[in-house]
Structure formats: structure tokens, C-alpha cells
């Protein structure tokens, strides 16, 4: 069974009398431990799709299951619980909590979302800080870190609860190319180490080449999927 399954997925937004169909009946499946990207121009529906996979939004019609759970059946509270238990998020703007240090930002989900005992928590955070190359920066606050360092902390925060799936919406959009490549490499190495499935969106061709599976979206429709070799040849 795939980790994520979408069947004839439709998402329609309504703004007054106007209806906008952001996703127009897409079907796809994402396997466990895969490294997947959704690519496409702005407005193609990448973020909408990621939001639905991340249980932040419900499809208008069609079926979307994540970890065998039909996400349209989840209420606000259940969705939050599901996200906290099974998913990790990396944001384009990092969205670290400015009053907390890098260490405390990574600790946040273990304290406020799950309730890990102190010793286990500390071990896990130190392991991740080392894994993302931020071992010596744990005491720094977000405003003392560079963009790349912030995103490393964000990746560590996303992984700290051992989620099955990490969703990253344009995780490299605010980074220079070299840093962006390092973040993608970091995510890949985390996938290799922990077996976590990574799904990210991007419109940077060099970044999308790093994905093992790429889904291309255009105007809310899936144009097809390709593996890494096909993308690099293209």
C-alpha cells in the first residue's frame, strides 16, 4: 500500500460568486521512503496539493488517503493530532519561533505537540542537531542564524518526532543555489538515514533534478510523473 494515494482529486476555491478550480482531478501515489517533488509554475496547484497531503486542507471531491487515513474525514482537532503524530513540515520562510533557540525550536514539537520525557528528548535533539550540522549552533536564536542554518534547523524540527512523511513547500526558494543544494542533500541524507518520505515542491529545475520522482503540475492538472533519470536527461 502506498503512503499517499490520490484518486480523482479536485479542489475548488470560491471567492464570492467566482469558483476557481485549483486541482482538476489528479491521481497519484507516493511510496514509502521516496524523495518526491511536485514541480510546476506559480499557480499550478503545487501548494494546494501539498496542503491537502499535509491535512491542512480538504479536497472538494475525490479521495486522498495518507497513511491509510482518508484525510477528508478528519476534523480540525483530529487533523492537528494526525499532523503532530505522522507528518513533518518544512516551510519556505523557515517559520522558526523567534523567541526560542535552535535547540528549543527543534524541541518544540516534542514538548508542545508530543510529550517526550526530558532525557529522551535531549538525546533526540542532539542527534538531529549533529545530523543537520548544527551541533555548535543549538544555543543561537533564529535571528543569529543564516538562511541555510535556519532551514537546517527547520528540517531537524520536521524530523524530530520521527514522522513517516515530511512535506516541504518550496524549501529552497529563499536560499541561494549552493545553500539550496545543501538543504536538498541534507533532506536526502535524512531520508536515507531515517527512511522518512520527503515530498517537496519547487520550480527550480536544478533542485527538481534531485528528486527521485517528480510530478509535474500545470493549471491544476498532473502532466505526468518521471523518475530522476528521466528528469536529468530532459
Amino acid at each position, binding site marked *: 500500500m502506498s503512503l499517499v494515494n490520490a484518486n480523482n482529486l479536485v479542489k475548488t476555491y470560491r471567492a464570492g460568486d467566482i469558483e476557481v478550480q485549483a486541482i482538476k482531478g489528479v491521481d497519484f501515489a507516493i511510496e514509502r521512503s521516496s524523495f518526491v517533488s511536485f514541480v510546476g509554475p506559480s499557480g499550478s496547484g503545487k501548494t494546494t496539493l501539498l*496542503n491537502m497531503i*499535509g491535512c*491542512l*486542507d480538504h479536497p472538494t471531491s475525490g479521495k486522498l488517503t495518507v497513511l491509510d487515513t482518508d484525510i477528508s474525514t478528519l476534523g*480540525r*482537532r483530529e487533523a*492537528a*493530532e*494526525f*499532523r*503532530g*503524530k505522522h*507528518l*513533518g*513540515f518544512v*516551510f519556505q*520562510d523557515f*517559520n522558526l*519561533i*523567534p*523567541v*526560542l533557540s535552535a535547540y528549543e525550536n527543534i524541541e*518544540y*514539537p516534542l*514538548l*508542545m*505537540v508530543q510529550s517526550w520525557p526530558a532525557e529522551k528528548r535531549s538525546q533526540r535533539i542532539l542527534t538531529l542537531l549533529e545530523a543537520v550540522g548544527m551541533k555548535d549552533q543549538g544555543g543561537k536564536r533564529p535571528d543569529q542564524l543564516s538562511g541555510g542554518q535556519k532551514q537546517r534547523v527547520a528540517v531537524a*524540527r*520536521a524530523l524530530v518526532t520521527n514522522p513517516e512523511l515530511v512535506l516541504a513547500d518550496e524549501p529552497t526558494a529563499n536560499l541561494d543555489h549552493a545553500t539550496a543544494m545543501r538543504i536538498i542533500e541534507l533532506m536526502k541524507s535524512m531520508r536515507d538515514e531515517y527512511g522518512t518520505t520527503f515530498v517537496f515542491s519547487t520550480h527550480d529545475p536544478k533542485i527538481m533534478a534531485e528528486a527521485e520522482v517528480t510530478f509535474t503540475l500545470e493549471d491544476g492538472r498532473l502532466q505526468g510523473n518521471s523518475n530522476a533519470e528521466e528528469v536529468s536527461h530532459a
Partner: protein
Amino acid sequence: MLNVLKMAGRNLMRYQRRTLLTSMLIVIGIVAVLLFISITGSFKSVMIGQFTDSVLGDLEVHEKGYVASIDNLPLDLNMSAAVTSKVEGTLNRDKAIAAYSPRVKLPAMFSNFTETTSIRINGIDPKMEDATCPLLRGRIVEGPKGGPLLKRGEILIPVLLARGLKLKVGDTIVLVATNREGSVNGKTFVVGGVLESISGPGGRDGYIDIADARELLRMTNPEVSEIAIRLKDPSQLNQATTALRKDISGITGKDRKPVLEVHTWADLSPFANLARMIDVMTLFIKITLVAIVLVSVMNVMIMAVYERIREIGAISAIGTPPGRIMAMFLSEGLLLGLAGTVIGTAISLATIYALNVWKISFTFGQQQNIVLAPAIGAGDVATIAILVIGMAVLASLQPAWKAARMDPIGALRHV
């Protein structure tokens, strides 16, 4: 919960100046309320003490209908010796009562042999009156302050009459009174002392021995106009009044109806209205404090939510339960209220202590140098603290609810 509070504390320190200003506002409000309560409370208790301890006692027992005609000091509404004896028996058994003083009151003409004026005479048992109204002795501005309050044949006269009729201690005056049968009698007295006036009742009151009063009225039976009562604990006034009313309700007349009434000092003194006004003012000050806390904390919390919309979106997206997001913002309000309350209470208590050390005095009516002794009860402090902290949490409720209900997608998109 500790983690939520810790997080809330960090968030409050994010905008230190704003947090400080809001806390200051709460501190100022609390200091204003606690000082107002303590100072007006002190003023109230000093003034009430002046009336109860020098004139009225805490309670008074009268024949039914006497108080309604008290301005005329009606002699036909005195308590008989038998009734007085029953009341005294009850009072002697009542453990809440510290002392009592039977009085015979009468209107009389007061003359220095050249001029004549009216006077309200209180016939008292000096020892019993001294025990019931211990401040009466303190009102003696001329004459001996030690020894017995009054001797047979002596009269304590109000300063009003002493000045008007140019009398001094040792002078002889004559009192002329009409008894209930309409018979007029006169008796000479020596001025034993001059009493300072207090505002309200007692401004034209003179004191003679109860035996002299009865002699002046040619009473064959030892009647009593009223019995003034001093309680061991004046704060138990309502309970003591209720208990006494119940106890003396059994003293009935020929028609088997109760013949006596019990009145508190508040029923008899116009100062009670002023005391009530002080209570109303205190209530309004408390309402103002509530408004200050509500508006300032709500303002801060609304701003806090508005400024952190993206952050709320992020923590919501990563799975923070809505209840915990709400708890985080409520905790911020709680900490604001708590900090303001702790600092405000500490400043208030220190100021109250300083006011007691410096001993501020004031003048009320004829009385001068009344020393203000501000004090605040633990109950008042607790009430204000709970009120402020409760209001701070209440003011955070709407912003916290808004944060908890925020759609993570919309919040993450917020610019």
C-alpha cells in the same frame, strides 16, 4: 502546563516595552484601588469608631417607637424597670457583648441664671458608660480627665453651650425639665467638664448621673430610655444584632407583642450614608480597575495574535493542538495579570506601611488630628488579585480563541 507558561513568558518578553507598559497600567490600577480601599476604610473605621465609642455604642435597645420620635426624646416611651431588668439579664448572658450602658434621656432647659437655652440630657451610669463609650472621656476638653467620668451633682456640658453661655468648670447651672406627667422640676448642677463636639448626634448633648436624671424627672420607678451596647468584635455587628433581636423578641407587652427594638449605629447615625457612599465609590474604583485591565490586556493580546499570525500558522501546521495554542495565549494574559498584581500589591502594601509609619492626621468636623491608620485586609487583597488576574485571562479569551481557530493555510500565507 509549565511548558506553556514558559513559552508564554518568552513571548511576553518578545516586546519588553509593551509588556512593561501594560504591566505598569495594571500596577497603577491595583495600587490606586488598594490605597483607596485602605485609606477610605481607615477613614470610615475611625469615624465610625468616633460615633460608636463616644456616643452611640454599636447597638442600642429602645422601646418600640422610641427611635421614630427620637428627636423629641419622648419620656412616655421609656422602658419600664421590669423590661430593663429582663434586657439586662439577656445582655449579661450574651457573650458577644463587652459592655452596656442604660441611659435616661430627656430634653431640658439649661440656664446659667442669666441666659437660658435648650439641652439634650443623657442620664448615665458613669462606670457603665465609660465601659460602653470609652472615647467619651477623650472628648473632655476642660475638666479632669482621670477619675470617675462624672460625680453626682455634676454635669458634662457641650463646648457649644460652654462658649455660648461663657461657662467654665466649677460654675453652677440649673436644669429645668418637664416629666411625663407634665410636672416641671429644676435642679442645680456644677459643671464637671466641657465636652468637645462631634459632627452628627451629640453636638448638644450634656451628661449627668442617671440617678440625678431620675430625680430631675421625679421618676418613682427606675425607667430607662435606651441601653447602649458595646460589642467585643464590632465586625460581628450584623450577627450580634440578629442574635439580640431574637433574644429580646420574647420580651412582650400586655398584648403579647414584642415591646423592644434593636438598632445598629448605622440606623441611628447620618454618617452611615457617608459610609455607604464610600462603599459605592470603592465599587466604582474597582469597576475602573476592571476596565483598565480588560482594555489594556485585550489590546496587547489582540496585537500579539495579529503580529504572530504566520507563527500561529506554523505551530498549528506542525500539529500543536488548538487547545494548547489557546492555552499559550491565555497564559500570556495570566502572566501579565499575575505580574501586575504581584508588583501592584507589593507597592500598595509598602505604601500602606509607610503611611502608618508617617502617621498622617486629618480633621473631620470639630475633631482635629485624627490619625489615619490605613489597613487592608487579606480578603480585600485576595479579592482584587483574583479580580485582576481573572479579568486579564478573560481579556485574553477572545484573542486566544481567535488564534486557536485560525486556519493554518491562511495564517501561513499572511504577510
